[in-house]
């Protein structure tokens, strides 16, 4: 006889296991597709070196041999996968340094920006979402809702530049603001967070509207609990799982946002690295970055599902 709690924990384990295998398969397919797409479209990835006059035909031939590009495509693919599992993503065509080293060097700058951006995204998203659900019929609520809409629609390239112009003007009035941290981290993270806040706000608002109809809210109301407290404590918690999943997705998509933010604010980082590698035709770096993005997305997606599972006990019973 299996007790109820045992059965639910076994169910939880198999769900987590299935989710894990699914995630690994997704990442593998994405990695393989990018590999083949890049090779089939680009044809010879180092032909650009020859056309740019950066290498002589002899050097190109040597490079091709040393990179293993003279082997059949499928063998190259197996080599790539084998290297990938050893943490070897190939070497840069220009500097000859290992791609993984270059990426690890630039990672902290981007991680810092992305985490700070995610913090701002949650702050703005939750605030705008709660306000637009709480004060739905008032001008304040409508303002919050349209601000959330603007956040999703406006391109980071423009809001970033707008922020930079305003900051320069403010600097004339308040010279105290000229701390490096503000220009290099606070401002870019603020604008990056604002761009991701719109989607979060919409999910928070939709979730609150839904959970406010729940019987436990009626019960809370019967117990004489205030509207604001009901909303923030009783209704917000069950509305959170979709927010958690979305935040995990946003975390992965934030990387795409950092590409633009790093360019606007001239910050070093992975985004900047991706752009320069594409402009130089340094395909191993571009490929390594995109592969990492896919793996990161899959992991954060997986974690989000498991986390949602932990926050909302009702999800456990369904499976």
């Amino acid at each position: 006889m299996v007790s109820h709690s045992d059965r639910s924990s076994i169910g939880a384990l198999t769900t987590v296991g299935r989710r894990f295998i699914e995630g690994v398969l997704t990442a593998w397919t994405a990695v393989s597709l990018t590999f083949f797409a890049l090779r089939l479209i680009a044809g010879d990835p180092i032909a650009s070196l020859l056309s740019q006059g950066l290498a002589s035909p002899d050097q190109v031939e040597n490079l091709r041999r040393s990179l293993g590009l003279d082997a059949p495509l499928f063998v190259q693919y197996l080599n790539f996968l084998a290297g990938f599992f050893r943490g070897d993503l190939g070497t840069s065509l220009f500097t000859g340094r290992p791609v993984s080293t270059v990426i690890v060097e630039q990672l902290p700058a981007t991680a810092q920006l992305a985490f700070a951006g995610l913090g701002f995204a949650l702050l703005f998203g939750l605030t705008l979402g709660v306000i637009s659900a709480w004060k739905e019929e008032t001008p304040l609520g409508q303002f919050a809702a349209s601000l959330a809409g603007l956040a999703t629609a406006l391109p980071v390239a423009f809001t970033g530049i707008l922020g930079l112009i305003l900051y320069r003007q403010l600097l004339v009035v308040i010279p105290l603001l000229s701390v490096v941290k503000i220009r290099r981290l606070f401002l870019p993270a603020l604008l990056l967070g604002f761009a991701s806040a719109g989607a979060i706000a919409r999910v928070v608002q939709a979730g609150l509207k839904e959970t406010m109809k729940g019987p436990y809210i009626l019960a809370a109301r019967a117990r004489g609990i205030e509207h604001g407290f009901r909303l923030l404590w009783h209704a917000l918690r069950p509305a959170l799982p979709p927010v958690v999943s979305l935040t995990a997705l946003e975390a992965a998509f934030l990387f795409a946002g950092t590409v633009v933010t790093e360019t606007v604010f001239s910050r070093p980082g992975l985004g900047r690295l991706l752009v320069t590698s594409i402009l130089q035709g340094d395909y191993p770096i571009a490929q390594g970055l995109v592969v990492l993005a896919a793996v990161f997305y899959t992991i954060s997606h997986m974690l989000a599902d498991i986390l949602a599972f932990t926050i909302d006990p009702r999800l456990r019973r369904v499976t």
Partner: protein
Amino acid sequence: MRHHLPLLLSVGWLLIVLGVSIAAPMISQVNPLHPVAEPLLSPSQHPPLGTDALGRDVWTRIVYGGRLSPGSSFAAMAITVVVGGIAGLIASSLGGWFDRVIVWLSNSLLAIPGLLLAMLLVAAMGPRLLTVILAVGFGGAPGFVRLSRTMFHQIREQNYVTASVALGANRTWIAIHHLLPNAKNQLLSLATTHYAWAFMGTTTLTFLGLAGDPSIPEWGVMLNAGRAHLIDAPWLALWPGCAISLTILAIHRLGAWLSQREEGY
């Protein structure tokens, strides 16, 4: 009437952009690629929006950008809709293994943010405006496959399709005579919503310098060029930035209205 004001303004802006881009050579007789005056002149009577770092007329470049930016993102959107729509139609009408493979491939590709996928494609094809269009077009396709497949599935659940199957219609006949005609309106609203994404995608990639040529009068390219003069000539970044933002907002509003109208049925 008051309720429709944002929609009217949006449609108005899009019509202005369309009109100005068609009549570009008549609106401005100057060549957008050649200098006309001193560099970095501030906006005044002449030239109306000032000149850029090479002395080119910003107003003329904005006007010609009204051709390049909306035009190239429209081409990108068309690629996405055709490729994604056909894949969704095949998945939905053939079902079975076709469906499973298409769903699996598109879901896996969705693990890479659309913008990054597009950047990877530019990396493969080399930085040019044409490759940006192709990259944004194909980069958006995985997401569109999912949307169109769901849509075709919903239509297939309708009673008239079941009746058609009962009368002996085969899958191709149903796809051509039922799925496609009935998807027309919904496809239009999905395509409009996606146009906003494609517009954001192309201008972002050109902003990053992935169009290669920095002299073309394209709004994203101009926004990028303006970055160098944020203090002495902030308008260089403001004009193209406003043009991009207004166009995206207008397309969003139009798309929202179209999909609301769909749900209203």
